[in-house]
């Protein structure tokens, strides 16, 4: 895609995606709204501005790859993939149901556009590294993007992968950390401290960029900048808010893995509609 960026259009899409995410999770009766809402602006920017991809040809060898290593945020990914045309949006309303193409965590054997199965934390990142290595070896120009959770960054395998990607100079790899500061049972800094997180990645010899992960222009700018880095993988540490966009979900630990009730959903949708620019 790419070309001139229409920040307003991306923001409008993300706002609608937030509503659909909450609706499909409530319909499913379970799921992870908090981490989906913190990630959705970045995933929107990737698919509707940045990635070279073709939903009609999901196995195009030269496509850019996106891996959702924090697989529990898949409602955000599914909503975007459906909007891109990877599958009929009607499938969204079967999320987590028996026989659905949309599993509770991403399954590459069932869902068009899902490059690798994830859900067990720390794994998708390593698979993304393998894809980046294959692209380098093949001389293909594609890039690989992996979205990590900050809680996920407590997994040792993330740092195994960080060593590996830097050792092999995989500059076609960009990791994006959804730094929402919360994990299942509390703040990341209370459960197992991550800060100074940017310094850790720098020490692992990655190119590091820190942004506001809900500022669409900043997201697009960071992705564009990452593309220009030579010789090193890049990490974008995106400061985000878990549950972003809905006042009573934002920053609330209890909405990590719990669907909104119908009443809560109605309030959330009203808030999101109220946030839309008037006129």
């Amino acid at each position, binding site marked *: 895609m790419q070309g001139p960026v229409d920040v307003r259009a991306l923001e409008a899409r993300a706002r609608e995606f937030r509503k659909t995410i909450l609706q499909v999770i409530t319909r499913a009766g379970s799921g992870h709204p908090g981490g989906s809402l913190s990630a959705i602006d970045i995933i929107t920017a990737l698919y509707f501005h940045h990635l070279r991809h073709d939903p009609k040809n999901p196995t195009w060898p030269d496509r850019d790859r996106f891996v959702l290593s924090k697989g529990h945020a898949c409602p955000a990914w599914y909503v975007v993939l459906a909007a891109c045309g990877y599958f009929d949006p009607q499938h969204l309303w079967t999320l987590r149901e028996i026989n659905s193409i949309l599993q509770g965590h991403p399954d590459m054997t069932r869902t068009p556009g899902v490059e690798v*199965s994830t859900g*067990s934390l720390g794994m998708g990142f390593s*698979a993304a590294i*393998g894809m980046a290595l*294959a692209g380098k070896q093949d001389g293909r120009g594609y890039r690989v993007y992996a979205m990590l959770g900050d809680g996920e960054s407590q997994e040792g*395998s993330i740092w195994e*992968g960080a060593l590996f990607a830097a050792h092999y100079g995989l500059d076609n790899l960009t990791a994006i950390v959804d730094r929402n500061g919360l994990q299942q049972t509390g703040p990341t800094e209370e459960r197992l401290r991550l800060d100074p997180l940017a310094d850790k990645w720098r020490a692992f010899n990655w190119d590091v960029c820190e942004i506001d992960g809900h500022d669409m222009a900043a997201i697009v700018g960071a992705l564009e900048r990452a593309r220009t880095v030579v010789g090193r993988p890049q990490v974008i540490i995106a400061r985000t808010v878990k549950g972003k966009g809905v006042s009573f979900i934002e920053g609330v630990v209890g909405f990590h893995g719990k669907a909104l009730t119908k009443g809560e959903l109605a309030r959330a949708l009203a808030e999101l509609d109220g946030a839309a620019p008037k006129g």
Partner: protein
Amino acid sequence: MAAPTIATRGMKATRDAYGEALVEVARDHPQVVALTGDLRDSNRLEAFAAAFPDRFIECGIAEQNMIGVAAGLAACGRIPFVSSFAVFSPGRCYDQIRVLVAQPRLNVKLVSTHGGITVGEDGMSAQAIEELAMMRALANMTVIVPADATETRQVIRAIAGFPGPVYVRLGRAAAPLILDEAYRFVLGAARVLREGTDVALIACGIMVAEALAAAETLAAEGIEARVLNCATIKPLDEAAIVAAARETGAIVTAEEHTVLGGLGGAVCETVAAHHPVPVERVGIQDCFGESGTPRALMEKYGLTSSAIAAAARRAVSRKAG
């Protein structure tokens, strides 16, 4: 009394055959790449690394990431052969194998050396004696334990052309060459190495040689033992197992592995379901290993031809009627 011996064609470690075979296979399969976690020497991948430096991927001592990298490579069309010690792969990276390799049926070949208790002096932490059960429990996973270096060469060639995840367990120590060049490994087939109708000895890996020796001992006593080399533990050759049960009425399994969940477990499941007969399981009896020479460990933990022969006598005595 000295243990009986069987005719062999010398000694060679299965890991040595792996290193040689992978170089040959890689010439025919340009998509083959090799990964290791700082064990290129122990895994016998130095010749591969020299022949195909661009297709050799050193992953460092980081097995979880190594499996993920292999999955990503496989998703891009490679045929990764991933090697480590059998304690570490699958032991250090089982969840990665489960989610990234087995369920999506990615074309990753997990070939681990230093399987079993005959790792020897390095002791318990280096001796993989449970990993066949771990790998057999995974849906979509093929599990193979070659009997000797000759079979290993054929196994490596066969799995390179077989789409899907495979685990191969190889040994550290030199082991008897018991199969001749006319032998043909067929994935999923147990091969009858010796005919007999009184009892069936079903073995894998280094225990095939012990089973053949046990059959000699038993023959001298008037017990004719059928010997099956069950190199493919999954998918199990159920037809051959059931035929052995039906035609001999008594079974002994023999494996360099815990008797829980490996070859012995698999044979018991099949026999119980289709043709119940007495089964005796030779293997490690639900305990951990220790340091010692391979032979001393085999003696202490009951992994010998005499242990198999004793088990066969018990099995025969348990036959109904």
